[in-house]
């Protein structure tokens, strides 16, 4: 393991990641949310805001801040959970999930401080991130732009169109992070629209690619510490993850994408997250919104 990994407090990150997951689970009732896809992205989102991005409460309007675009917008509970734990958002506000009086719903929007752009329609934010990265290049800025993509999202042609353009403009200040949780809405990616060999696909588009365990903070830190991966090349991190990570009763279950748990299930799932027995789920499943 690289010496760079000594810079992070892995135990602290793991403890905070559990709290982020608790927030996600608590949002998965009274209407529910995309809990599986949020749990897979939780560690990488927490890592980026805790350790890598120059983003904090005091610089959200600073043109020199780093940018994170959540193109795979349905995992926004992971982002809100991270915001709550890092002080970018009041934890209490998460109780307003789906409230008509707030702006916390199934996809991100800029009414929430720290959200750079709304998403929900897949395949859009790669190009928006390109526009921001281009402007930073034109101005000679040093800030970095991260765009988180779902693996299912890679079905969208505009993701690959954006890779062509990012390569053409040598956007080495842009990092695409793929939450490779192996599932799209209803089924495994490889059973519907196979993506592998994914590393080779991105490399063929001219990117400098790293493939890591997206739940291993040391691996995340080692990968992002190597930024820019190769001068003049757009960066791609394929983060291998597990959909539903932390809850064995839904991990890798094709029918547990959008979940709307009952109140007793939420309590049981919170105990399950901390290592107790699995939950017997009877709530509605495969509610594809």
């Amino acid at each position, binding site marked *: 393991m690289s010496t760079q990994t000594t810079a992070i407090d892995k135990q602290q990150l793991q403890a905070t990641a559990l709290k982020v997951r608790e927030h996600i689970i608590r949002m998965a009732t009274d209407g529910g949310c995309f809990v599986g896809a949020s749990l897979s992205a939780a560690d990488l989102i927490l890592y980026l805001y805790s350790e890598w991005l120059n983003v904090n409460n005091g610089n959200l309007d600073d043109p020199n801040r780093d940018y994170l675009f959540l193109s795979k917008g349905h995992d926004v509970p992971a982002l809100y959970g991270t915001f709550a734990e890092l002080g970018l958002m009041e934890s209490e506000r998460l109780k307003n999930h789906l409230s008509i009086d707030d702006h916390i719903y199934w996809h991100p929007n800029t009414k929430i401080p720290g959200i750079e752009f709304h998403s929900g*329609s897949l395949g859009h934010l790669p*190009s*928006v991130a390109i526009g921001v990265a281009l402007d930073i290049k034109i101005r000679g800025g040093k800030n970095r732009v991260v765009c988180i993509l779902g693996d299912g999202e890679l079905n969208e042609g*505009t993701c690959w169109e*954006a890779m062509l353009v990012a390569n053409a*403009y040598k956007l080495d200040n842009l990092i695409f992070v793929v939450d490779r949780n192996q599932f799209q809405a209803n089924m495994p990616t490889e059973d519907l629209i196979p993506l592998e060999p994914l590393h080779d696909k991105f490399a063929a588009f001219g990117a400098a690619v790293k493939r890591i365990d997206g739940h291993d903070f040391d691996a995340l830190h080692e990968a992002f510490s190597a930024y820019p991966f190769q001068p003049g090349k757009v960066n791609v991190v394929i983060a291998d993850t597990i959909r539903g990570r932390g809850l064995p009763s839904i991990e890798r279950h094709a029918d547990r994408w959008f979940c709307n748990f009952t109140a007793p299930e939420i309590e049981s799932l919170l105990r399950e997250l901390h290592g107790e027995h699995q939950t017997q789920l009877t709530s509605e499943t495969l509610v594809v919104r």
Partner: protein
Amino acid sequence: MTYEELLTQEALADDRFVVMTAENRALVRNIYAHLGNRFIDTGITEQTMIGAAAGLALRGRIPVVHALASFLTMRAFEFVRTDAGIPNLPVKLSSFIPGFLSDGNGPTHQAIEDISLMRGIPNMTVFAPADEDDLLKMLPQIWNYPSPSYVRINTRKTEYEHSPFEFGKAEVISEGNDVTILTYGLLFEQVLEAVKILQAEGLSVGFVNMRSLKPVDEQAILNAAKCNLVVSVEDHFLTGGLYSIIAEVLLKHQASAKVLPLALNEKWFKPSLLPKVLEHEGFTGKQIAEKILGYNTKAVQATIAAQEFSE
């Protein structure tokens, strides 16, 4: 002054401007030499261009983007609506060869639902200049307005000298009691011809260049409704364009009028060079006048200038 000269001048005076194209360079061939890295060609990627324009606008830029009208409004529609429309970002759409201006390209290139699509997006503003003079008079205000906008680019030259542009105002060319013709875009040229013929036949003719379609000049439409007949003339599908706008305004104000729409009703037009297209589809000045009169005249149709370039 040309479109490109005006854009170069604006962009050199204000470094918020960036010029983008999805490899449609007909209007901006020489601008790279002046703007350097503020000229961005994303290749044949209308969707990515619009998304990137939104990203640039997030950073304070005013992107003026170029693509063929049909691909800008239809292939990239959701990007325009979602990435420029929802956040109300000042992405400026310069739409090349809209309407009949696609002349010989065929239906793939016929943007004749563009007004309908673009005006349906909240925050979007929509403009259709009568000719190059009208275009150049409106662009500085449009480019500096803090919302997304769609402009049907029309660089055709006419003899007519337009009045100064006012956002949301139509240009009233003449007023009349018998008939008032409302139009926009390149058909302005033909309506000018039609008005002369109608006047020679003894009619009192009103003529309005709508130019700003959203926001639209409701009063100009209500004034036109006071005469015996309102005629809408447009190179657009009957659905969703000026005829629909007139209907919406009249209904909103509980007014009524006799309206004759001249538009493309549930059909694409037959591709050819522009003068032949106009004649085939019945949109020459003489044909427009005779449709309004209900009889043929001995008027001689003036020569219609061909398109200077196409792509």
